[in-house]
């Protein structure tokens, strides 16, 4: 019987939620000690790669982009007995991972500044091109799912798509770049740029915007009329010579309706269970029900194929 | 108005008074020596004149101007520090050249003067040597050359020759005297070497515990010391207790078996003070036994036990036979060579 289960996941309030709501019950039920290894997605993924063949971590909770990489690199084991109630978008090929929360990628803006300047709230991805936002726009870079999805959405709106992103690159290079203050992946930094008044509009996800707004800062989220893109928070059991059966149990516990609601409340994640009834005061921004159904799901098979190439191109054409 | 004037200068370190009520007027071109026991405040006074220490009390004036108002760099002083204070990262030549550079002396001229200064202190060939690779005396000579080369109007020398052998020292003394004569440099020399002070100085300032004991010409201070301290500090002094024998006719001054007609006005018991070089071995006089006989090159030094206590005698090594250790001798001196003091007075 294994004594310790290592769960790697986000730090901060997410960690708090897991520690408070999940771990104590899980430990009691399974007679095991759970160690939480805090770190953001990329750190976790790097740890998996560094410890390859000698994995310490049993369960990894990361963003969807890194999760695709983890799966490709064979870090993830297989999940059995996932609930049938899951949204399709929440499922992965071969059930090597599963989404535990839904997020929509769209636009965030500073309501106070917009009101002061008499600007209308943004409504479309095309608003990113508006010259009045010069040097006040923040977009996460392409190695971050938000940025990648912005690129894909802009390509799609202009006759391209996952398999042909040239249009997206062109718009970024010529129309959007002048507006961009920074390509900023760090959420903390993003909020700080808003707080210091340097940025007023950004591409971001519902979960983040929700918790930012919760601090009392005047921001709101916009689902662009061309559609917001889906972004997932995912979990997978790590493949080891002796994969712990408890890894699967832990992930399934995260899909428990009670926990799903807690994550919605604390962290702004849209539930991945179709049947879950959400109390109305909870998801003001989160993709729930109708909004969840209308989300655009990018074709990750294609994207993953091209991602390396895009990154290179992005670094040389856009971010310089 | 004197050229350099110290007026009631005092210095305290914390609660300790190190220099007290120091007043001195130095004329332009004068050569003054500070003499005094170790720790009496010589360096401190010099440093105040140089402007590196601020007097706690009193004023220092150069040509009537308050020195504390003049930046040290602008005072035109040449200084040799007791610890040399050479620039460790510069060669001997660079050290010496530094002051000339500061005066914007041209390169050619500079090289010439640096070469001459180093040659003068006997360091030809050491131009490119760094201080840490030189002997103690060589370093001291670089310090001397560095101070002299700028031909300052005031020279402050803090034991500048203490690490030199007698020969070199004498050459340097002659050099110093010459510079002072030809350029008219006002010089203040701190030295522990009385011979040096005496042979070089116009006036000597004898200090003790931060205070001036006497200011005077070398001969004045040596032969007419203002206090017992000065007398004992400058050279050696023998003290014999003596009394006046009024039974004899005329009255006689008696010290052991030595006697002489009593000078007028002396009281019953007196102390005779006498320089050791004024005592000679004679057929009659104070009976003494030679305890040790010390050879000191141009003279002999005898430590004797006399009827009136220990005594020191110095005799020139003029080739005449000298008494040996343990020998019984008689000490005699001329009346005019001794000075008398009422007994019981502080030594």
């Amino acid at each position: 019987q294994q004594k310790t289960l290592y769960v790697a996941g986000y730090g901060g309030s997410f960690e708090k939620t897991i520690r408070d709501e999940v771990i104590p019950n899980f430990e009691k039920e399974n007679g095991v000690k759970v160690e939480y290894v805090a770190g953001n997605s990329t750190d976790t993924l790097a740890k998996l790669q560094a410890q390859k063949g000698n994995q310490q971590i049993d369960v990894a909770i990361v963003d969807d982009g890194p999760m695709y990489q983890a799966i490709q690199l064979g870090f993830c084991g297989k999940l059995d007995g996932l609930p049938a109630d899951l949204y399709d978008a929440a499922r992965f090929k071969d059930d090597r991972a599963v989404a535990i929360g839904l997020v929509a990628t769209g636009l965030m803006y500073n309501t106070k500044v917009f009101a002061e300047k008499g600007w209308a709230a943004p409504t479309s991805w095309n608003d990113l091109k508006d010259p009045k936002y010069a040097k006040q726009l923040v977009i996460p870079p392409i190695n971050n799912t938000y940025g990648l999805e912005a690129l894909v959405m802009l390509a799609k709106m202009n006759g391209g798509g996952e398999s042909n992103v040239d249009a997206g690159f062109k718009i970024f290079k010529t129309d959007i770049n002048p507006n961009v203050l920074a390509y900023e992946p760090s959420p903390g930094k993003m909020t700080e740029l808003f707080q210091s008044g340097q940025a007023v509009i950004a591409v971001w996800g519902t979960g983040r915007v929700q918790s930012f707004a919760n601090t009392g800062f005047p921001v709101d989220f916009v689902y662009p009329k061309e559609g917001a893109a889906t972004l997932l928070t995912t979990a997978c059991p790590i493949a080891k010579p002796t994969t712990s059966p408890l890894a699967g149990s832990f992930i399934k516990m995260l899909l428990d309706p009670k926990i799903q609601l807690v994550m919605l409340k604390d962290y702004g994640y849209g539930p991945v269970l179709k049947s879950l009834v959400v109390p109305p005061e909870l998801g003001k921004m989160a993709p729930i029900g109708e909004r969840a159904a209308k989300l655009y799901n990018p074709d990750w098979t294609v994207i993953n194929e091209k991602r390396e190439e895009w990154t290179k191109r992005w670094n040389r054409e856009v971010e310089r | 108005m004197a050229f350099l004037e110290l007026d009631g200068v005092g210095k305290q370190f914390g609660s300790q008074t190190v220099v007290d009520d120091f007043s001195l007027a130095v004329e332009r071109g004068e050569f003054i020596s500070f003499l005094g026991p170790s720790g009496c405040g010589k360096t401190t006074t010099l440093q105040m004149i140089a402007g590196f220490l601020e007097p706690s009390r009193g004023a220092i004036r150069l040509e009537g101007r308050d020195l504390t108002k003049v930046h040290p760099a602008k005072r035109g002083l040449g200084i040799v520090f007791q610890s040399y204070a050479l620039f460790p990262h510069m060669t001997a030549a660079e050290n010496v050249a530094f002051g000339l550079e500061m005066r914007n002396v041209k390169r050619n001229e500079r090289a010439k003067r640096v070469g001459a200064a180093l040659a003068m202190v006997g360091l030809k060939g050491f131009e490119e040597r760094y201080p840490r690779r030189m002997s103690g005396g060589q370093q001291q000579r670089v310090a001397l050359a560095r101070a002299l080369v700028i031909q300052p109007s005031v020279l402050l020398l803090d034991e500048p020759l203490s690490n030199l052998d007698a020969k070199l020292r004498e050459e340097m003394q002659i050099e110093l005297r010459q510079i002072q004569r030809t350029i008219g440099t006002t010089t203040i020399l701190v030295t522990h070497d009385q011979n040096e002070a005496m042979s070089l100085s116009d006036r000597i300032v004898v200090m003790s515990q931060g205070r001036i004991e006497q200011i005077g010409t070398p001969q004045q201070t040596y032969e007419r010391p203002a206090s017992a301290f000065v007398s004992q500090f400058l050279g050696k002094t023998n003290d014999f207790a003596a009394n006046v024998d009024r039974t004899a006719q005329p009255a006689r001054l008696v010290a052991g078996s030595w006697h002489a007609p009593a000078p007028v006005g002396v009281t019953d018991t007196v102390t005779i003070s006498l320089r050791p070089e004024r005592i000679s071995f004679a057929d009659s006089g104070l009976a003494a036994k030679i305890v040790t006989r010390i050879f000191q090159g141009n003279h002999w030094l005898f430590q004797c036990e006399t009827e009136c206590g220990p005594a020191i005698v110095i005799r020139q090594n003029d080739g005449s036979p000298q008494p040996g250790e343990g020998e019984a001798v008689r000490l005699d001196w001329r009346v005019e060579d001794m000075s008398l003091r009422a007994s019981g007075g502080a030594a």
Partner: protein
Amino acid sequence: MRTNGPLALTFHALFVVFMLAPIVVVCLVAFTPEGFLSLPVNGFSLRWFRTIASYPEFVHAFWVSLGLGMVSSFVALLFAVPAALAIARYRFRGRDVLAALFLSPLMIPHVVLGIAFLRFFTSLGLGGTFAALLIAHVIVVFPFALRLTLAAATGMDRSVEMAAVSLGAGGFTLFRRVTLPLILPGVISGWALAFIQSFDDLTMTVFLAAPGTETLPVRMFLYIQDNIDPLVTSVSASVIAITMTALILLDRFYGLDRVLAGKGDPGR
């Protein structure tokens, strides 16, 4: 009379302002009543200091950082001081190579170091242990201890050591009683920089920190993943307050200048 002129004091004042400005700003922001960073501060509140209490992991992480910094910088000194003495004094073959090797931790981005260490320690079976974290920190702070000791030890007056040797001091006694006091300003400065570097390291520590041994920077970094709120500033302000208190106490009871400058004040 070695005092600073008005020009020097002006420079000094500007310099101090430059050094302190961002910190003062951070400390000011810590007292905001708002839920986000704002300046100028309108209102005054200890809200964000109270919030620290509800995050016990911050307090724990502070102690971890403190302990890690103390131990690693001390261990680094144990290795660095002898090495610095050798490099300062002797011209031996391999000296430059050694010096470069000892400095190399400064020259690699810490991400790379972090991952390299993680791979290395994992292959030794030490992955995720405190020992690994400690050793890595020793390596990373080593260059500071080395370079500053070196700065103090080069050109030191050797005759003082000779005097001690002639009086019968040898080996460690010589070092402890004479050499060390002479290079103490460098050693203490080196220790301070090493400590701070360890206390502040994030990029490498993220990979090596084990559950339960996350340091304060890691905690703060993970916390601000969600969003930056004034808690970061209040934690920073608290760290500063604690350090200053410790140093003021040290000053009271021992005298800072003595710690930093060594005994036997320069006199005149």
